[in-house]
């Protein structure tokens, strides 16, 4: 059984699944548009939570939030279901396929056999679409892959019921109602406002202030934790920023693409200029990654080097602070 479903590759899984599912239901909406309206851009530093034995840093909001916000702001209805038993989860998915509904799933990455081994770690907030089933396999559209792929039935059970943080518990979701006319303009403005509020939040570990906080901490890493651990922390941070899914520069380039698209829809020239500025900030994030990689490549930790990249990060934070204040003004 195979449903008609057009696969488009995307940078990030959640935007990609949302965009692909909506396109499939007749609402043509790009990945950057989903990301912008869903206020995906974020920064949070959680030193008390360890991921791969390093402090957690996220450049995006919590899993599921992007699509939920998009649905809210465009008046779409999305059905989400979680399951306590594997067999019920399978039944519901098969039922959906029978009813001709391509279905989004939250899955764990560790047992995705089509990923390169190096990328298979215990991360549970990945998303993909199932659009068919054969005797032995499910037909899978994973938005970070170039083409469609498959998972065996056993693998599907494992990835849907992966354990640990953000355990998917078989979660599946799909749009059930899409209005004929959607109000993109007001949705874009709501999305931008939300992002400005997040990035300028008066909390020490969130948004621009969070970036400044990390910059302060980085200076202390080599002394406090020793070379090996400090380098490991830094490498993890770069992975979060650049690994498959961010579209480069910790989502800054996707966001710049969104602002460019938004400037056309809203007829707002200022947003076009701001898009260019965001691109430059994204380039600075890339430079930061290059400098950081020099440190952990040499396996040395001169305090100097750590201070240099901390300065770079602080400069980025200051520029983003100005940027989001301007952005807030541009749409008010």
């Amino acid at each position, binding site marked *: 059984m195979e449903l008609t479903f057009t696969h488009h590759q995307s940078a990030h899984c959640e935007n990609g699944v949302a965009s692909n599912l909506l396109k499939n239901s007749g609402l043509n909406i790009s990945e950057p548009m989903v990301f912008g309206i869903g206020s995906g851009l974020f920064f949070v530093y959680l030193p008390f939570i360890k991921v791969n034995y390093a402090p957690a840093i996220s450049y995006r909001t919590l899993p599921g939030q992007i699509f939920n916000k998009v649905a809210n702001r465009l008046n779409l209805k999305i059905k989400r279901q979680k399951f306590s038993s594997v067999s019920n989860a399978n039944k519901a998915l098969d039922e959906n396929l029978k009813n001709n509904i391509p279905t989004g799933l939250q899955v764990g990455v560790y047992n995705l056999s089509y990923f390169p081994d190096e990328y298979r770690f215990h991360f549970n907030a990945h998303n993909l679409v199932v659009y068919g089933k054969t005797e032995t396999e499910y037909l899978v559209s994973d938005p970070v892959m170039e083409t469609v792929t498959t998972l065996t039935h056993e693998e599907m059970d494992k990835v849907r019921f992966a354990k*640990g943080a953000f355990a998917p518990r078989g979660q599946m979701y799909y749009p059930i109602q899409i209005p004929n006319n959607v109000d993109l303009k007001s949705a874009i403005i709501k999305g931008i406002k939300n992002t400005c509020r997040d990035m300028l939040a008066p909390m020490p570990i969130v948004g621009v202030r969070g970036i400044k906080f990390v910059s302060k901490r980085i200076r202390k890493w080599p002394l406090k934790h020793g070379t090996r651990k400090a380098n490991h922390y830094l490498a993890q941070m770069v992975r979060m920023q650049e690994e498959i899914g961010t*579209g480069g520069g910790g989502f800054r380039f996707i966001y710049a693409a969104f602002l460019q698209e938004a400037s056309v829809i809203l007829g707002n020239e200022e947003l076009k200029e701001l898009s260019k500025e965001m691109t430059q900030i994204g380039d600075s994030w890339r430079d930061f990654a290059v400098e950081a990689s020099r440190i952990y490549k040499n396996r040395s930790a001169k305090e100097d080097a750590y201070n240099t990249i901390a300065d770079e990060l602080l400069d980025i934070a200051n520029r983003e602070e100005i940027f989001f204040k301007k952005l807030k003004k541009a749409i008010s």
Partner: protein
Amino acid sequence: MEKDNVPQDQSNLTKNNVKELLYATDENGNYTTTLSTGWEPKTIALSNSIDEINERIADAKQQVLNGESSPIVYFMEVNKMDLTILSSYVGFWKWRVKRHFKPSVFATLSDKILKKYADTFEISIEELKNSITK
């Protein structure tokens, strides 16, 4: 980032023939998407993490051989897990799993409990008990 400057470095993706999608600007400054085979700073970050994992596995193995840890610790590292993840897979409280890390406690575990660990690591109870010390 301009489209022409999108890095096409060798990476762990290359050998699997996977390319990732990036957003970049064209000659008119308009955004478009393009594929990348990889980027060196990222590849170094990834291999740094893999080295880290391999060192942890080697350390764990040594601890088991020295009689300081039970084999559960070794297989946890091999499966890239930590205490939190392992405890949610086997369905025991963290403090209980931590107790099972002790060789003296491990030696007294029933087959029923061992099987939970073995299933999680996708090995047999026999392998869980003896494969390292052999």
